């Protein structure tokens, strides 16, 4: 009996100790603070807003049209992969947006978006149908003598017309719950902080500096294309697309020419796909209201994998877009006439020369994709090292850009070895994304980067020539 009582006391003692110990442990655990994660940078906040913020509107975000895995633009092929409830299709699901907000036929067939550049007074008849430009390399392509040029006609932003202000106009045009467009009811306007972050994010995308042509290209066709591109008596491309960018040649158009608008006559092209659909496609008068017919000069480095081309997606292929400058439509346009008056002749390239220039554009696009991929994969490696943020989206973008680079080359019958290297890189990226073994993942990423570098060396001399810049260095 006594022993039983003692045992009972001892048991209670141990239970009490256990409770005290357990509770203390819980309290201590609760009080222990994990080191706070680094606050997101302005660019990271901008990315979150760009991809996730709906501004209390119809469900769209900036990323609804500027898709990270479609070069921050949108093609009809990508549209076809989207589910029916994707916010892109709000005109088909929201009765308040069923009329005069989008044209679902043109959106699905040609990735054209409705814009009311000249005002909202006659929604039924006064609108433009425009493609969605990528938002890459904005840091190199929107400055002009007269301020920022945003959007297809250079006047895409309200307020002061800056890239920072662009989002405000986009929310009003594309995010609204109804065509009444009442601030505070149909959407909320971005705050100053959000505009700052969005601007920082957009400026961070893609190239941060222009190329310096000529590049030491390995392929004979692309190299010849580069010569034609830069020849002011032949291709004449380098006049307006200096170094294959979006700015005017300062030696010709004056220092700090920056980004320029031109009326190249694209609106007058015959047999435009949008017109062939039979849908109402009013003429687009470009810059200003009423417009002067001018549109903005886009960068060409990013061109080959971001077609269709021109503001109305009227030409599907890069070869076709080069050939445009041979045709009567350009020759008879104000920009074409200016070129003729200045040089004594129109652009007149033969088929082999058109293809050579396109080959050049394909190769510099592949090089830019490789530069971007290596950067994305480096970021994925760093994110793994610090457990700082998800890496899947980085892998997705790297995979997409790698596929793009490969397709851009194979589509032009160029550099099969580089294309094979890029396909190998894509396989390593897929494996890196699918494995949970961090060590193995790091090895796959490293192998993917090696393949990217090998592909790059196949396209362009691995030893940089003095004054020639082909992207990042190996280390």
């Amino acid at each position: 009996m006594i022993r039983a009582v003692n045992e009972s006391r001892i048991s209670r003692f141990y239970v009490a100790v256990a409770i005290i110990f357990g509770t203390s442990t819980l309290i201590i655990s609760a009080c222990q603070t994990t080191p706070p994660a680094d606050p997101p940078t302005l660019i990271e906040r901008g990315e979150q807003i760009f991809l996730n913020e709906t501004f209390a509107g119809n469900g769209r975000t900036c990323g609804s049209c500027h898709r990270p895995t479609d070069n921050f633009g949108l093609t009809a092929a990508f549209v076809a992969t989207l589910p029916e409830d994707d916010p892109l299709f709000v005109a088909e699901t929201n009765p308040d947006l069923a009329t005069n907000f989008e044209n679902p036929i043109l959106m699905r067939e040609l990735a054209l978006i409705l814009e009311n550049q000249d005002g909202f007074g006659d929604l039924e008849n006064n609108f433009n149908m425009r493609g969605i430009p990528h938002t890459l390399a904005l840091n190199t392509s929107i400055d002009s003598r007269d301020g920022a040029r945003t959007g297809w006609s250079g006047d895409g932003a309200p307020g002061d017309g800056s890239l920072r202000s662009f989002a405000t106009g986009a929310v009003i045009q594309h995010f609204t719950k109804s065509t009444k467009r009442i601030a505070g009811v149909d959407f909320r306007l971005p705050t100053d902080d959000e505009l700052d972050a969005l601007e920082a994010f957009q400026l961070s995308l893609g190239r941060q500096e222009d190329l310096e042509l000529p590049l030491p290209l390995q392929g004979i066709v692309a190299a010849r294309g580069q010569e034609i591109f830069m020849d002011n008596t032949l291709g004449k491309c380098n006049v307006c697309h200096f170094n294959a960018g979006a700015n005017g040649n300062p030696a010709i158009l004056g220092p700090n020419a920056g980004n320029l608008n031109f009326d190249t006559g694209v609106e007058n092209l015959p047999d435009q796909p949008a017109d062939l659909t039979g849908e109402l496609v009013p003429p687009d008068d470009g810059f200003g209201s009423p417009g002067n017919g001018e549109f903005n000069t886009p960068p060409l480095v990013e061109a080959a994998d971001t077609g269709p081309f021109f503001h109305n997606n009227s030409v599907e292929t890069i070869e076709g877009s080069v050939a445009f400058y041979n045709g009567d439509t350009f020759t008879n346009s104000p920009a074409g006439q200016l070129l003729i008056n200045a040089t004594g002749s129109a652009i007149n390239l033969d088929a082999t020369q058109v293809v050579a220039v396109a080959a050049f554009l394909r190769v510099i696009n592949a090089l830019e994709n490789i530069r971007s991929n290596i950067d994305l994969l480096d970021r994925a490696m760093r994110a793994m090292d610090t457990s700082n943020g998800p890496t899947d989206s980085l892998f997705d973008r790297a995979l997409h850009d790698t596929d793009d680079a490969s397709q851009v080359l194979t589509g032009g019958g160029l550099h099969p070895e580089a294309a094979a290297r890029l396909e190998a890189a894509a396989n390593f990226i897929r494996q890196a994304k699918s494995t949970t073994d961090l060590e193995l993942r790091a090895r796959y990423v490293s192998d993917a980067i090696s393949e990217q570098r090998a592909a790059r060396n196949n396209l362009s001399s691995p030893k940089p020539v003095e004054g020639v810049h082909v992207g990042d260095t190996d280390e």
Partner: protein
Amino acid sequence: MSNSDLTRILIAAALLICPFLGPTMTYGQQATEQFIPIGYSPGVSNKYSYIGSIVAVDREAHTIVVQSNRGMRTIRVTPRTRIWLDRSKIKQTNLVGSYSDCEEGRKVEIMHDPDDENVADWIKIESN
């Protein structure tokens, strides 16, 4: 023709077209500006525009006098001046207005023409 000859010709052509590329145009897209309430135009409100009340209207001279936080100012309204009625406070859609909507006592935001500070580029009038 050598490339250097051509470059000289192109420079001459560029100088000819430069006046047309000059700073005579604004890049602010005015279509969506209509729907931005008074005081919220990005990069413009509280920086370049002035917000205040109309204290006088001269219909013959096509001018209005505005008392704002930046003092008293007379500004001319031209056929190119865009006028909008800001009805966002009453949760109604903003409308295109006209000079006749410029009445004494009404709250306005005015952005001047970039080439002439005495001319209104656009006017937003608060509408009840």
